[in-house]
C-alpha cells in the first residue's frame, strides 16, 4: 500500500457514487470518493423525489435523520392544452414511498454518513482522465495529481467523459438526452399546503404533458418542498434543435399556463438550474464493466425514462458495483471477467426488468409525437370543455360534432395508426 494507492476510487459523489462508497466503507474497504463540486450536491439538480426503496437499505436511518422536504402523498397527472388542463389526482395519506429532497442538502448528508463509516472524501477535485495500463484501468488523473486503485467506479453522471475515454460509451445522441431546467420558487409553508391541498409535511408531485410542449417529447413537473415549489421541464435535445426552441422559453410558457400560474403566484425565484437527463432507456445501456472499472448510475444511462426515476436505479447500481468490488478485493481479481458479476447482478433487479418493459415506450411516443403529445391532449381537453359547458345547443349534437371533428382532424388512417401504436405500447409493456 503506497500513499497514493487505495482499494477503490469512486468518481462522483452523486447518489450512485455515495451509495457505492458507503457500502465499501461498511465492509471496511479503503475507498476514496472524488467530487468536482465544492460540496456534494453543488453541481447537481433533479426534480425531485427519492424513493424508500432502495434508500432505506443504504441509509436505514434516513426517514428520521436525513434532510427531507416532504413525504409525497398526492400524485397529479396534468394533460394540458393551451388554456385548459385535465388533471387526475391520486391521494394516499398512508403512503411512505416517495420523498422530495434538495440535492445540495441530501447529497451532503449522504456523503457525511460515508465519511463517518471511514470513506475518504475529496471534494473540489476534478478527474480529467483515467490512467490505463495495458487496457486495464488503474487510476485517475486530476488537475494536479495521479491516484491509483485496484478498482475505479465511474459515478460521474450523465456527461461521463470518463466512460467515453475508455470506449464504454459513444458520443451521446441528441434523441437520447433531454435537457432539464428548473426554478425553485419560495412560498410560505401554509400557502403551499393550501394551494396543493396538503396536510402538514406531506407533498404533491405533478407531472405535466401537453402545452407548452405540444407535439414535443418532453415532460413538465412540479414538486413541493417545505418552503418552496420546484417547477421545471425536460425536453429532448433533438426537439429543441428541430423546433428552434430554448428550454427557458418553454419554462416561461409553462409557468404562465392558466392552470399552473396560480400555484406559484407571488413566489420569489430562489434559484434557476439546468441538468441533462439520460432518456435512451434500456436500448442505450452500455457494457457496465471493463478491466479494473465499473460504471454506475447516469454515467451508465440507468434512468427509467417513462417515470423519470433515476436516483433509485443509481443507488442500486452503486450498491451492486460496491458488493462486486468487495468480492473482487477478497479474491484479488480485478479482471473484466470478475467485474462482469456486477452486470449480472444488475440484470436481476426489478429496475433492469422495468427498463426492459418500457424499452420502446419513449421511442413510440417520440416517433408519434404529434398524435400522442399534441392531438390527444388537445382532444381530451376539448371533450371536457364540451362536457362541462351548458348552453343552447343540446349535448347530443355537441357530442356528434365532437366525433365528426375528431375524425376530420385525424382521418381514419391516422386513427388506425394510433390504435396500432397504442396497442404496440401495451403489448410491449405486457410482453
Amino acid at each position: 500500500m503506497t500513499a497514493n494507492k487505495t482499494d477503490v476510487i469512486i468518481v462522483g459523489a452523486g447518489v450512485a457514487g455515495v451509495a457505492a462508497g458507503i457500502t465499501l466503507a461498511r465492509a471496511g474497504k479503503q475507498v476514496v470518493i472524488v467530487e468536482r463540486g465544492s460540496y456534494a450536491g453543488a453541481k447537481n439538480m433533479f426534480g425531485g423525489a427519492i424513493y424508500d426503496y432502495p434508500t432505506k437499505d443504504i441509509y436505514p436511518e434516513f426517514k428520521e435523520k436525513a434532510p427531507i422536504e416532504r413525504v409525497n402523498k398526492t400524485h397529479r397527472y396534468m394533460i394540458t392544452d393551451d388554456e385548459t388542463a385535465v388533471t387526475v389526482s391520486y391521494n394516499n395519506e398512508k403512503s411512505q414511498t416517495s420523498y422530495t429532497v434538495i440535492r445540495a442538502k441530501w447529497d451532503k448528508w449522504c456523503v457525511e454518513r460515508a465519511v463517518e463509516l471511514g470513506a475518504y472524501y475529496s471534494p473540489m477535485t476534478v478527474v480529467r482522465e483515467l490512467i490505463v495500463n495495458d487496457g486495464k484501468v488503474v487510476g485517475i488523473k486530476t488537475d494536479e495529481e495521479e491516484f491509483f486503485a485496484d478498482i475505479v467506479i465511474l459515478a460521474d453522471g450523465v456527461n461521463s467523459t470518463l466512460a467515453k475515454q475508455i470506449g464504454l460509451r459513444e458520443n451521446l445522441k441528441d434523441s437520447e438526452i433531454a435537457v432539464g431546467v428548473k426554478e425553485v420558487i419560495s412560498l410560505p409553508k401554509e400557502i403551499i399546503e393550501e394551494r396543493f391541498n396538503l396536510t402538514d409535511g406531506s407533498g404533491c408531485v405533478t407531472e405535466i404533458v401537453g402545452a407548452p410542449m405540444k407535439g414535443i417529447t418532453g415532460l413538465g413537473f412540479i414538486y413541493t418542498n417545505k418552503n418552496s415549489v420546484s417547477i421545471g421541464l425536460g425536453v429532448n435535445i433533438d426537439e429543441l434543435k428541430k423546433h428552434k426552441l430554448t428550454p427557458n422559453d418553454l419554462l416561461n410558457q409553462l409557468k404562465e399556463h392558466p392552470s399552473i400560474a396560480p400555484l406559484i403566484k407571488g413566489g420569489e425565484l430562489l434559484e434557476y438550474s439546468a441538468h441533462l437527463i439520460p432518456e435512451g432507456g434500456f436500448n442505450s445501456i452500455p457494457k457496465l464493466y471493463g478491466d479494473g472499472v465499473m460504471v454506475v448510475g447516469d454515467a451508465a444511462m440507468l434512468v427509467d425514462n417513462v417515470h423519470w426515476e433515476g436516483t433509485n436505479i443509481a443507488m442500486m447500481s452503486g450498491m451492486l458495483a460496491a458488493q462486486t468490488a468487495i468480492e473482487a478485493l477478497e479474491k484479488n481479481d480485478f479482471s473484466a471477467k470478475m467485474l462482469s458479476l456486477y452486470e449480472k447482478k444488475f440484470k436481476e433487479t426489478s429496475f433492469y426488468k422495468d427498463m426492459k418493459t418500457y424499452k420502446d415506450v419513449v421511442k413510440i411516443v417520440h416517433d408519434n409525437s404529434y398524435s400522442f403529445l399534441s392531438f390527444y391532449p388537445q382532444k381530451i381537453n376539448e371533450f371536457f370543455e364540451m362536457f362541462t359547458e351548458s348552453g343552447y345547443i343540446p349535448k347530443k349534437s355537441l357530442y356528434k360534432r365532437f366525433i365528426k371533428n375528431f375524425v376530420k382532424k385525424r382521418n381514419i388512417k391516422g386513427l388506425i395508426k394510433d390504435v396500432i401504436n397504442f396497442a404496440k405500447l401495451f403489448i410491449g409493456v405486457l410482453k
Partner: protein
Amino acid sequence: MEYKNTDEKLQTVKSSPDVVSHLVPNKEDCRTCENKSCQYVCPAGVYEWTDWDDRMLVKFENCLECGACRVACDKQSLVWKYPKAGYGITYKQG
C-alpha cells in the same frame, strides 16, 4: 419579482467563473454551421452568433455546466470541459 430572461434568472445562481473559457467552439465549423443549435439548446443563453465579427460569442461565465451544447453541436466539434476545481456554479437548491 418575476424573472423572465436567462440573464435575470442567472443572478440567482452562485458562481465563480474562471478567466479562461472551458467551452471552445471550432471557429471554422461555426462559420459554416447552418443551424447553430448550441444557441437553442443552451438553458443559459451562453452562445450568441455575432454577425459583425463572424464568430460565436461564448459567455462562458453564465454556463450552468449541463452539457446540452456538447450533445447538440451540429458538427460535434465543440471542445467541452468541466471548469477547473473551485470554479463554476454552486447550486444550493438543486
